[in-house]
């Protein structure tokens, strides 16, 4: 004979200061025993008013604000913003500048995925080792960024029409060394984690989202590809020179935490392929248009423009409105981190306390971008 123990629902505040919330995220979670029955996400603890600040800065100065949105994907943020500025001002970018920013943004994508995977495994309880493995590789990429532009995290590398500095001579051998070392390290990660029974049994079938649900909720990026939807803006709507490089889009059909982890690991390999091709295709030349054509104090004609890229987290879009002056009249950011949290409640309700932060980590958000 079994006896049923009835438990009272208990509401717990998690965050904003909590080591597993990837920043200052707060959730008000109601538990019934160990099961989650309600989740209410609370945002805004890192709100700095970036969109308003952009209205008082020149188009080039806003680049520094975009760095601080998703601070593990600064190069990608720069790229999205620059595409919007170029569309708005009708700037024709310099080819070498475009190749350089493609290389930079693909390196950044690897770094960002390494962070996502490392912290996801840490959330699973594998404290330390896997995170140090991924962080070690990321560190090498950050060193490359330091060579490119002198900064590691907040790069501000891009300028309208290209980049502000050409890569130094020693950058290319250093990058090749990193790219040679990376695939065996990703294999290590695969050996250690992807085929690991504990990780497999903890993440398989947890927090499943269907493609229909996700498309309805505007979720994009690796989350959507983990449910088998072949939607990658680099492939569907190629910006920069992505139409000239060949790459595969790893897809998984499960739509659970494991699939989201797996897609990110595979995407790192594809990014390496893209960088190798960029290196072959890049040619000497100017890194940005002449000063007379594209001055630092850009005055785009009156109008608006929306440009989106495939960020490591999803579709990152910038909507800019110009009134003909030196600063944007309105600068809106379509932040994938925020929008990918739309279904957080659906993902978590019915799951267990122990899986909560794993599911949350598998969304791969960055609070700097959620709150802006």
């Amino acid at each position, binding site marked *: 004979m079994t006896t049923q123990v009835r438990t009272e629902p208990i509401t717990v505040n998690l965050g904003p200061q909590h080591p597993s919330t990837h920043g200052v995220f707060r959730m008000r979670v109601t538990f019934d025993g160990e099961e989650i029955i309600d989740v209410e996400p609370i945002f805004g603890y890192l709100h700095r008013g970036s969109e308003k600040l952009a209205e008082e800065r020149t188009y080039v100065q806003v680049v520094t604000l975009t760095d601080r949105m998703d601070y593990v994907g600064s190069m990608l943020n720069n790229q999205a913003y620059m595409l919007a500025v170029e569309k708005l001002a009708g700037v024709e970018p310099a080819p070498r500048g475009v190749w350089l920013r493609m290389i930079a943004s693909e390196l950044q994508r690897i770094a960002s995925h390494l962070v996502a995977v490392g912290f996801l495994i840490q959330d699973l309880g594998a404290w330390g080792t896997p995170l140090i493995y991924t962080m070690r590789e990321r560190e090498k990429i950050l060193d490359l960024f330091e060579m490119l532009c002198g900064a590691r995290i907040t790069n501000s590398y891009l300028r309208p029409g290209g980049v502000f500095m050409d890569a130094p001579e020693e950058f290319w051998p250093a990058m090749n060394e990193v790219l040679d070392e990376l695939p065996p390290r990703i294999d290590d990660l695969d050996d250690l984690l992807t085929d690991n029974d504990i990780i497999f049994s903890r993440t398989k079938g947890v927090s499943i989202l269907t493609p229909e649900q996700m*498309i309805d909720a505007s979720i994009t990026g690796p989350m959507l590809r983990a449910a088998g939807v072949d939607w990658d803006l680099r492939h569907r709507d190629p910006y920069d020179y992505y139409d000239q490089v060949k790459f595969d889009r790893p897809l998984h059909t499960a739509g659970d935490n494991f699939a989201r982890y797996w897609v990110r690991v595979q995407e790192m390999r594809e990014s390496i392929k893209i960088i190798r091709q960029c290196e072959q295709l890049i040619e000497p030349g100017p890194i940005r248009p002449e000063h007379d054509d594209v001055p630092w104090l850009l005055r785009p004609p009156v109008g608006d423009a929306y440009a989106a890229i495939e960020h490591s987290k999803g579709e990152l879009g910038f909507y800019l409105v110009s009134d003909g002056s030196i600063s944007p009249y309105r600068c809106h950011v379509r932040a994938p981190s925020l929008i990918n949290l739309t279904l957080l409640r659906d993902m978590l309700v019915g799951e267990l306390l122990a899986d909560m932060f794993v599911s949350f980590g598998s969304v791969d958000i960055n609070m700097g971008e959620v709150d802006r």
Partner: protein
Amino acid sequence: MSKAWDGAKLAEAIHKSIPDVVVDANGTDIWIEPDSVLEVMRLLRDDAEFQFQLLSSVTAVDYISYFEIVYHLTSLTRNATAVIKSKTGFGRDEARIPSVVDIWRGADLQEREVWDLMGIIFEGHPNHKRIMLWEGFPGHPLRKDLATYEQSIVPEAERRVPSGVANEVEEGQG
């Protein structure tokens, strides 16, 4: 390459199903009546000609004499994009527009953000609360008439010392 819908063609295509809702069309953008947002968006999502399953972005711009709500739509199956705009809140009246959360859940957090920062009321939103700022924050910061910190500093010439304080200072000095 994804195809951006031409404004005039999109307006014509919508006119066939729902007449007289498109106010203006220009380049890649169309402007619709705020009251007809739900009807038009349902058509754009469900009709085989459009198939806009994904709402990329919802935002608003303050043009001082009115507010403009901007929707960016994406069709995954047709690989197409469209820009739908709607003007509301003329003369800085209370700006209102129907919420599209029932059509795309992706509008949930984005509409809350627009309400919080721009002060547009989304009618029928299931959780119409502030998102970035706290409840009770005065005003909506992305509006153009918000006084900035510098503007709230009173210039030297316009300074008026409250009478009680002035007396205390004079007494202290004397």
